[in-house]
């Protein structure tokens, strides 16, 4: 089970600078922990987060083990036209999740 929470305004005026907030469920296992038997718990983190608007990349983040579990990332963008934001999280052990949100720009 992996859930994402996305907060994008449904509507904006052309030229508005809007804030986008994202929350993704993920353990963000650091790779610095050991089991009682002394084995390293393998690193399992999200390494990359990307946001595209109508296909073009508008924001990207490289993440490291020091990002808290269930990564929360917010950023801004300028509302230029109506369309769709596509969000993508990728990481260790084949992790890959996507989410999307639409906006109407008037």
């Amino acid at each position, binding site marked *: 089970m992996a859930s994402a929470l996305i907060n994008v305004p449904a509507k904006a005026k052309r030229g508005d*600078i809007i804030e986008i907030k994202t929350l993704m469920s993920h*353990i*963000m*296992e*650091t790779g*610095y*922990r*050991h*089991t*009682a038997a*002394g084995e390293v*718990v393998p690193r399992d983190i999200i390494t990359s987060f990307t946001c595209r*608007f109508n296909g073009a990349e*508008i*924001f*990207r*983040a*490289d*993440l*490291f*083990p*020091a*990002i*808290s*579990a269930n*990564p*929360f*990332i*917010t*950023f*801004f*963008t*300028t509302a*230029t036209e109506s369309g769709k934001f596509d969000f993508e999280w990728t990481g260790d052990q084949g992790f890959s999740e996507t989410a999307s949100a639409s906006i109407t720009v008037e």
Partner: protein
Amino acid sequence: MHRPPDTSRRQFLGLAGGAAVLGTLPVVIVRSAEATPAMLASAIQNVTGGAAVQTGKVKLDIPPLVENGNTVPMTVSVNHPMAPEDHVRSIHVFNEKNPQPNFANFHLGPHNGRAQVSTRVRLADSQKIVAIARLSDGSFWSASVDVVVTLAACTEDVI
């Protein structure tokens, strides 16, 4: 709360994410990995390529005294235009004493309108946090903040 402080601190970060392995994978910390000021300098060098970093333009908001080092809210903003010919290209955030000196790199462009990002980070210990912005003209700007991580009264082992 009755452990020597250093042991608690190690465990503090080490238990990150413990809930998800609850009951299946008992976890203990045997290594006390820690970045060093040299590692911080080297991580910054990787981004700047040795170019001079000026103080200013960047604002780093992080609580000076945090309630729990596992989840510390952080906002970085750069007071600079976001125009096609002159904008912030990226923001990089570093630490001094976690096992590893990087938090995150954020890649921006003029369409962002405002150079401001927020996230939540893990802090293994009280330490210095550094944020660096790269502008489109190739210059680097920075801010740094000292953060005090108080020890939780009841740090919890996976039980």
